[in-house]
C-alpha cells in the first residue's frame, strides 16, 4: 500500500508519485529520522547530564589550547590570538559533530541496531534517513560551540561586541559551511559502509586531520606551502575565516599574513569578505559534488557486496 494514500475510499493513482508527493515523503522521512536521532542522542540520560555531555567536549578542547597559550605566553597572551583559538575550537565542535553524525548512523544501524538493511529496502531514500539521523549530532556540536564561545567571552574576556557583527557574512558563511560539513559527513558515511565495526573512531580521526589543514587554531602560515595549498582548497578554511571575520572584525587572519601562500599568490594581506564567500561557494560546490559521487559509488558497492546486512563485530 502506498504510504501516501489517505484514509478513506481508494482512488486511482498514477504509478509514480508526483514531485509534491515525493517532497512530502522525503520531509516525513527526514522528520521521523531526526526524531529518532534526537531520542538516541538525548534519551540516554536526564536533561542536565545531557547538557553537560553536550558542552564538555568542546569546552575542554578549547581549554587545552588556552592553557597551552597561557603557559607559553606566561599569562600575557595576545587577546586577538586567544580569541582566534577559542573561536576556532568552538566552531570545530560543529565539524566533529556534523562529520561524526552521518558516519556513525551507518555504523550504529548496521552493527548495533542491525536495521540498515531494512532501512535500505524501505521506500525511503537512505540519504534522507542519514541526514535526519545525523542532524542532531551537528546540532549538539553547534550548541557546544555556542557555549564554548560564550564562556570565552564571559570568562576569558574575548573582545566581542554585538553591534560589530557582520550578520550577512555570518549567515552566508554559516549556511555554506554547514553544507560543506554535511558533504564531508556523507563522504565519511560512504566510507563507513565499506569498513568494519572498529570504524567508530574514524570520524574523529578525519576531523582531527582536517583540523591541521584548515587553520582552526593556528594561522596557515606556519604550515609548509604545499599543506597551505591543500588548506586553501578546503571549504572549512574559508568558513572559519568568514565566521571569525564576521564575529570579530579585528581578529588575526588564518589564511593570509606575511609569508603565507595566500599573500604570495594574491599580494594581499588578508582575503576580503566577498572573496571569502566566493571561494567558500566554489569549494563547497566541489566538495558536495565529490560527496554525491562518492556516496553513490559506495552505496552501489555495498548493495552489490551485501555490506548493508553485514555485522563485523570484532
Amino acid at each position: 500500500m502506498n504510504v501516501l494514500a489517505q484514509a478513506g475510499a481508494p482512488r486511482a493513482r498514477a504509478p509514480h508519485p508526483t514531485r509534491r508527493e515525493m517532497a512530502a515523503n522525503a520531509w516525513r522521512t527526514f522528520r521521523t529520522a531526526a526524531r529518532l536521532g534526537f531520542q538516541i542522542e538525548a534519551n540516554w540520560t536526564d536533561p542536565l547530564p545531557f547538557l553537560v555531555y553536550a558542552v564538555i567536549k568542546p569546552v575542554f578542547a578549547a581549554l587545552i589550547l588556552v592553557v597551552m597559550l597561557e603557559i607559553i605566553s606566561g599569562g600575557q597572551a595576545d587577546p586577538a590570538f586567544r580569541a582566534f583559538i577559542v573561536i576556532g575550537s568552538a566552531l570545530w565542535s560543529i565539524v566533529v559533530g556534523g562529520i561524526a553524525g552521518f558516519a556513525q548512523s551507518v555504523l550504529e544501524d548496521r552493527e548495533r541496531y542491525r536495521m540498515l538493511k531494512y532501512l535500505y529496502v524501505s521506500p525511503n531514500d537512505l540519504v534522507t534517513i542519514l541526514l535526519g539521523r545525523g542532524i542532531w549530532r551537528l546540532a549538539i556540536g553547534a550548541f557546544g560551540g555556542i557555549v564554548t564561545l560564550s564562556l570565552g567571552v564571559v570568562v576569558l574576556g574575548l573582545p566581542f561586541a554585538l553591534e560589530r557583527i557582520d550578520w550577512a557574512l555570518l549567515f552566508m558563511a554559516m549556511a555554506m559551511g554547514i553544507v560543506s560539513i554535511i558533504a564531508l559527513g556523507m563522504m565519511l558515511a560512504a566510507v563507513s559502509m565499506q569498513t568494519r565495526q572498529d570504524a567508530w573512531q574514524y570520524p574523529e580521526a578525519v576531523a582531527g586531520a582536517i583540523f591541521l589543514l584548515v587553520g582552526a587554531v593556528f594561522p596557515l602560515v606556519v604550515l609548509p606551502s604545499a599543506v597551505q595549498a591543500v588548506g586553501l582548497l578546503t571549504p572549512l578554511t574559508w568558513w572559519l575565516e568568514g565566521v571569525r571575520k564576521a564575529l570579530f572584525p579585528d581578529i588575526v587572519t588564518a589564511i593570509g599574513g606575511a609569508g603565507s601562500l595566500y599573500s604570495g599568490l594574491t599580494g594581499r594581506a588578508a582575503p576580503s569578505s566577498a572573496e571569502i564567500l566566493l571561494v567558500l561557494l566554489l569549494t563547497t560546490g566541489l566538495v558536495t559534488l565529490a560527496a554525491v559521487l562518492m556516496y553513490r559509488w559506495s552505496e552501489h558497492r555495498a548493495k552489490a557486496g551485501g555490506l548493508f546486512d553485514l555485522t563485523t563485530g570484532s
Partner: protein
Amino acid sequence: MSERSAAPPSPFVSRPTASPADAARWSPRRILITNLRTISGRAYPRVIGMMREPSWLFFEILLPFLTTSAFVFVYRALQAPPEYIGFVVLGGAMTAFWLNVMWLMAAQLYWEKDQGNLELYFTAPMSMMSILLGMAIGGLLMSCFRAAVVLIVGTVLYGVVFSVDQWLLLLLVFLLTLIALYGLGMVLATLFLLWGREAWHLTQLLQEPVYFVSGLNFPVARLGVLGAAAISTIPLAVGLDAMRQLAFAGSVHTDGFLSPEVEALILVVMAVTFVAIARFLLQVIERLARREGRLTMRGS
C-alpha cells in the same frame, strides 16, 4: 570397561568422571590452559580484523598523527621552546593507549551485550578477566604500532631531541602505565555494564576532559590542584608526567609534579588497585548475570 573403550571419545570431556560435581573440578593446569586459550581466542578477531582490513592504517595511524601535528603547529605558532613539541609527540603517542582502553575495552562489554555475546561469555567456563585481557592484547598491538609511528615519525619530522638518562626506569614507567591503564579499562568495562547507560556517550565524556587534566600537551603541574587530583587518580596523567621528566632529563620545562621514582610507585599502587577492583567487579557482574539474568539482556 569394554563399553567405555568402545564409545567414541567426546571432545567435551577431558577425563572420565564419576559425577557432574567431579567433572566441575578442574586441575590448575586445565584452568590455566583454558584461560590462555580464551585470551588468544579473544585477541584473534582483533588481530585478524586488522590484517583483513588495512584501512585502519590510514584512519588510525596517519590521521591521528595529523591531529598530533596540529598541536605541534600550535606550539610553533606560539614560538614555544622545542621541548614542548616533544611533549606533544609523547602525549600523542600515549593517546593511542587511552583511546584503545576507552573504545576497545571500557565500552566493549556493553557492546558485547548488544551483540549477544555477553551471555556466552558468562556461561562459558572461563574467567572474564581472560576475555578482557584478550581484548587488551588484541587492541594493544594496534595501539603500540600507532604510538610507535607517532613517536618515530614525529621525532624525525619535527626534530624532537630526547635526553634520556634512565632508560630502565623509563621502560618500567611505560609498562606500569600500560598495566594501570588497562586495569582501569577493566574497571570501567564493568562499571559501564552495571550503569547500563550509553557506553558511547560515557566514552566520549572521558576523552577531552582526561586529555586536559592529564596534561597531554603540557606539564600537568601547571594545573595546580587539578593536576594533583589527576596525578592521584588517572594513570595517564602520572605516567605521562614521569615519562616527560625521564625523556627530557635536565630540561627546565618538564616541571615534574613529583620525582619519576615516586610516580613509578604511584603507578604500582594504581596497577594493583585497579586490577584488584576489576577482579572484584567482574565477580560481582558475573554473579548478578547468573542470579538475576538481567545484565545480559539487550536493549536496556
